[in-house]
């Protein structure tokens, strides 16, 4: 079974400042890793995913994440945030087999302050 932890429930940051949203996971099997973003009153949309290969993954809207197997982490970063990045961010994991469910973290609410 897998589990996901997002230690920060809320992250306020000033516009144009860098941000890091933390995600740690536990799993007894190999996993795929995802970050989703949810803008107000919308569903979730995929930001980026790690499947294999390079541990640094680039996504949409200037976000990137780094997979660290030894620390079982998949932290999300952006060097300079914009007001429009204000949203809820969810880290998720899924095992490699077709019938594995996606396990979501509790989410981190990012608030960008002008």
């Amino acid at each position, binding site marked *: 079974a897998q589990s996901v932890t997002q230690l920060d*429930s809320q992250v306020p940051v000033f516009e144009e400042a860098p941000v890091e949203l933390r995600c740690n996971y536990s799993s007894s099997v190999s996993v*795929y890793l*995802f970050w*989703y973003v949810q803008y107000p*009153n*919308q*569903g*979730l*949309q*995929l930001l980026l*995913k790690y*499947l294999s290969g390079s541990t640094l993954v680039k996504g949409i809207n200037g976000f990137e994440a780094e997979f660290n197997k030894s620390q079982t982490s998949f932290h999300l970063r952006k060097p300079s945030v914009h007001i429009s990045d204000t949203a809820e961010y*969810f880290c998720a994991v*899924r*095992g*490699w*087999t*077709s*019938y*594995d*469910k*996606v396990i*979501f*973290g*509790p*989410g981190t609410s990012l608030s960008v302050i002008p």
Partner: protein
Amino acid sequence: DVKVTQSSRYLVKRTGEKVFLECVQDMDHENMFWYRQDPGLGLRLIYFSYDVKMKEKGDIPEGYSVSREKKERFSLILESASTNQTSMYLCASSHRDVANQPQHFGDGTRLSIL
């Protein structure tokens, strides 16, 4: 582009009513999912389905049932609505045999039970 459509964005019902939430996807996905989203709890899986007429309980199935008569449609049923079922409900779909592909989400139904 993948489209997951939930029939209602906002819904208000009374305690004891039978409530139907509908979800339709247009990408021929085998898997479909129903989640509820509550502040601080992230997404919790209610039910999922790997194929027509198949259903599996998720983490919080109590008080809910589902129906999958056609591949593109997955319905969530609240047999007798209660106030603790007031929540945001999200439908998602994905390919069954491609484990590294993300889920695609609808925009959600915000359900209020009075």
